[in-house]
């Protein structure tokens, strides 16, 4: 093998390793194929090489996006490398300037604010207008500093921490970067709470597509469910006639489908309404999820809704506003107690209770007691939580609720789809 060939085999091997790190299932076969294709086709045009290697390495549309990003970062021309280095140097300079500024700004009464390192990092990297907002807030409340120094320090710290945590969630939104490359794909991974009005039709179309995929999977699983063991004599004899009375192929009875009841309890307090809308839309798209369902909305009170009243987003919003539930706090305990006390009973062994809430409720101990009772009455309980899973360890109410029932994250459409898939398998 010539020296140049060895070099490019090494490069391709390194590129394969990079793709593996990016989550693509790349094995030796793919690397061998890539080498073979470059040898056989003698590709000299960069775009053609990019296309050819993409056909070898990427096996789905999302993998194609990952591949193109990795390829563009790995195989760079000398000019591009120079430009990148210059850009990186400028970015490093800007970052050190912002760090120096942040050191000054994150001080209360001349002392550095007690903040975690990752939150300081968030402050440095967040957009200028957000920093300006915090600066102004500090300025406005400065006169309180002398009046009650300790209270002022605690207040500023708590405001900063909350704001920075929110910013961190926004900045960690993994899909923001790929918005330009594939808007649909990006929407799948973006936090639902960040959806704008213009995103909603696309999100609805995406939900319909995912729901179709989930329904197709379920229908296949039911078909594959096999037979219950009982021979279907009539069918077997009828089929036997095709082969001269010999029973070549036996027919078995299919298991009877168990009728399931799905009871949905959706939190529609201020912060939750967007999630509830999407979750309901998702569940309604999944006609196969349940044979029967009942939907309850709650904030401080509990209201049952007619599924037909929720045919579209506008109807849903109108209903929530007219019902007086909108803009109130969350009282999960009252809602669950009300649900358990209904007569005739709603929950039962064949019912699956699906709760959509962020677990932030008034009187948590009462809510937990009511949840225990609901769990006792219902066959299964699944909790869909719109707070990203990585934040769960920091929220005490989530930890407590998660110890009592199954909890699934649903902060993005992708997670919501996965949670609904899980629900269908329950």
């Amino acid at each position, binding site marked *: 093998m010539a020296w140049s060939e060895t070099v490019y085999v090494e490069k391709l091997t390194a590129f394969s390793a990079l793709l593996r790190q990016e989550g693509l*299932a790349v*094995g030796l*076969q*793919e690397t061998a*194929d890539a080498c*073979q*294709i470059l040898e*056989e*086709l003698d590709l000299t045009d960069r*775009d*053609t090489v990019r*296309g*050819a290697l*993409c*056909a*070898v390495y*990427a*096996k*789905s*549309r999302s*993998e*194609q996006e990952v591949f193109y990003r990795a390829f563009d970062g790995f195989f760079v021309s000398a000019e591009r490398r120079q430009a990148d280095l210059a850009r990186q140097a400028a970015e490093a300079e800007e970052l050190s300037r912002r760090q120096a500024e942040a050191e000054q700004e994150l001080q209360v009464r001349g002392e550095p604010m007690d903040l975690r390192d990752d939150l300081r990092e968030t402050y440095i990297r967040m957009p200028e207008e957000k920093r300006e907002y915090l600066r102004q807030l500090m300025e406005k409340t400065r006169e309180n500093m002398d009046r009650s120094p300790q209270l002022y320090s605690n207040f500023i710290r708590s405001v900063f921490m909350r704001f920075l945590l929110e910013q961190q969630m926004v900045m960690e939104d993994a899909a923001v970067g790929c918005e330009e490359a594939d808007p649909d794909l990006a929407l799948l991974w973006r936090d639902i709470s960040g959806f704008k009005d*213009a995103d909603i*039709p*696309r999100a609805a*179309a995406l939900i319909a*597509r995912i729901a*179709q*995929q989930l329904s*197709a*999977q379920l*229908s*296949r699983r039911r*078909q*594959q469910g096999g037979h219950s063991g009982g021979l279907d004599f009539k069918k077997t004899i009828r089929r036997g006639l*095709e*082969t*001269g009375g*010999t029973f*070549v192929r036996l027919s078995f009875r299919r298991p009877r489908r168990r009728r399931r009841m799905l009871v949905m309890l959706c939190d529609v307090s201020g912060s939750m309404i967007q999630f509830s809308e999407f979750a309901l839309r998702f569940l309604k798209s999944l006609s196969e999820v349940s044979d029967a369902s009942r939907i309850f909305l709650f904030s401080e009170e509990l209201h049952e809704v007619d599924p037909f009243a929720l045919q579209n987003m506008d109807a849903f919003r109108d209903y929530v506003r007219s019902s007086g539930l909108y803009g109130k706090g969350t009282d999960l305990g009252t809602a669950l107690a009300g649900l358990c006390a209904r007569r005739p009973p709603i929950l039962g062994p064949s019912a699956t209770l699906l709760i959509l809430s962020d677990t932030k409720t008034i009187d948590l101990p009462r809510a937990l007691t009511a949840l225990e009772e609901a769990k006792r009455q219902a066959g299964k309980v699944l909790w869909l939580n719109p707070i990203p899973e990585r934040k769960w360890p920091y929220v005490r109410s989530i930890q407590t609720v998660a110890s009592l029932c199954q909890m699934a994250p649903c902060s993005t459409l992708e997670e919501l789809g996965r949670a609904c898939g899980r629900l269908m398998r329950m």
Partner: protein
Amino acid sequence: MDVTTLRAKLDDAHYIYDESLVTTLLVALKLGRPLLIEGAAGVGKTEIAKVMAAALDRELVRLQCYEGLDESKALYEWNYQKQLLSIQAHMGARSPEELTKSLFSDEYLLERPLLRSIRSQEPVVLLIDEIDKADEEFEAFLLELLSEMQVTIPEIGTIRARSIPFVVLTSNRTRPLSEALRRRCAYLYIQYPDLEKEVAIIKARRPNVNEHLAVQVARAVQTLRDSQTILKKPSIAETLDWVAALEALGVSDLTPEAAERTKGFVLKSSEDLEAMAAAGDGCGGEDGHCGHCRQGAAEAPGGADEPPQGRPTLKVPRAL
């Protein structure tokens, strides 16, 4: 086969292609890998297999997948009736062992598309259409064929391919395919064609079409596809059908009346037709063709080329 030859063959087949398609086809051909094509319905996935059959001068063997498809429909089946007749005819004349052995021979084997494609003397193009509609077991069953180019029939043994077919699998992504299947294939994703390509397709498939009409139709179809309210996006075949319908009516200009008379060729559901009717200002004519068009052009944020978002307007600007 090199790039130039492949391009020439695709040109001969009147197939409008882009560079990524040619490169992927060439990679699949050179590596002898099956080609998995994904994309929305009606973007021309199946057509690629047909065109490749014509380009490579091979027979096209097609397997249409559906729920419940199994080996007996896809690979082989024993001819039970013939076997039963044979048993009755030869009973007593031949020993039971000999008779049993003779029953599982080529004579009683009914070849289905997969077996036919690998037992053919001449290499063929095997199209496994809409693989996502088949069950997961069938996908697993395909793995042996796709990676080893062989199949196993319990009564006979392993049958190796006499000739290596060029395999094309298509999927509409109604369910995710297994990693194992994807890994064995070269992958191609096809999107709806852009305006320029769609006009070229119309002209290639309907050589006598009026250029002005082709542009108008292509522009209108692009607008419909971009619209959020249209649920079933028009496919390329529907674009061609629409052009054919307009030609049959002797229409050379896509007026609101002509669009109204022929809209059933491009929109195939009552919801979509209602959505288009509800938009109201779609006329299909050029800017200023009618009052609605003038109004639409004035309201559009970016002028005539940018219809208001989410509203299906059949507006056709003057130039591409």
